């Protein structure tokens, strides 16, 4: 899908990426468990290892391309205190259409 969104309907992988991003910032104690060990937190999530690694390593651009919900990505960045410059750099590294339209 061109334009504002990667998918007109989330894929199952996008659902599970979003599930992690949502739970980490909404479920009691999930953020603490995630920060203690992202690998352990992600162990039973039904995602390919590449996408689990993208979450763990804050590869925001790759998660964007995988269809992660942008608001959850943004909240994840803010919630983890990820440097703004790193967030933007990761996104712009995967840019194909830098301009609107």
């Amino acid at each position, binding site marked *: 899908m*061109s334009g504002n969104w990667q998918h007109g309907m989330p894929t199952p992988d996008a659902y599970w990426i979003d599930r992690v991003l949502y739970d980490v910032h909404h479920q009691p104690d999930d953020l603490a468990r995630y920060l203690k060990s992202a690998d352990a937190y992600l162990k039973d999530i039904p995602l390919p290892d590449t996408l689990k690694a993208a979450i763990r390593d804050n590869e925001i651009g790759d998660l964007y391309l995988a269809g992660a919900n*942008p608001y959850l990505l943004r909240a994840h960045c803010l919630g983890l205190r990820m440097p703004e410059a790193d967030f933007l750099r990761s996104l712009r590294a995967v840019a194909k259409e830098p301009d*609107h339209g």
Partner: protein
Amino acid sequence: MAELVGVFAASHTPVMLNFPDAIPDQERAAVFDAFQSLGAALRGCRPDVVVVISDDHLHNFFLDNFPAFCIGAAPQYATPIEHWLKAPKSVLPGDTALGAYLLQEALAADFDPAFSMDLTLDHGVLTPLELAGITSEVHVVPIMINCVQPPFPSMRRCLQWGRFLGEAIARYPGNARIAVLATGGLSHDIATPRMGLVNEDFDRRFLDLLASGDDDALVRYATDHVHEAGNGAEEIRTWLLAHGAARGAQFATQYYKAVGNWYTGIGIGAWDIGQ
């Protein structure tokens, strides 16, 4: 009968609260002054309740059950839900009677909203109220539109919703004074490679069409061009709903500035409903 005493719309972004210093002092002061003027206008309407039309940014709702439209019918709403938002915690009093009335009227009019009696409101509702300085003064009935996760309700449906809302408010028994505040948009991208780009041409064209009285052209433009304005611009649905609620009243832009370092086209507008 109730009285619709004001219809307003304003952009929202958490960046205004979280990173206010990302823009020069003078520019920030102008934006904040514009929101203070919005607050003064709302306060001047002396509303008993403000119907706040916004979107839930995947805090209350998730992909396991995501309503296209949801009416709040709670006695109060805690806010903000984001642990990372730099805003004081507060509780906004609700209006259960008006929320329940709008829900029942919507269903009777063949709309199919969800409802919630337990919403914790996010920056979409709080930020404009906070910057307008009226957070502690208002009762609210939130109407949440899905603007954040495809598939979306159509732009045309949002305008239809707005027309229904305006008519329902006018029929509401009693003598309540009710204002409408839409919050969202204008052009911006969230977590895309375009983040930081603002499409001022889109914003100004959209604002001009709100003022034009040509609703078909307005809906067509919103539908056909929203992808040129970023995923955050999907929130212009809230403006369309306010436009419908104003039922033909003249729209005027009160403030507009493309604020790239806040990632958003900041717009504030009002409909002249003759109050």
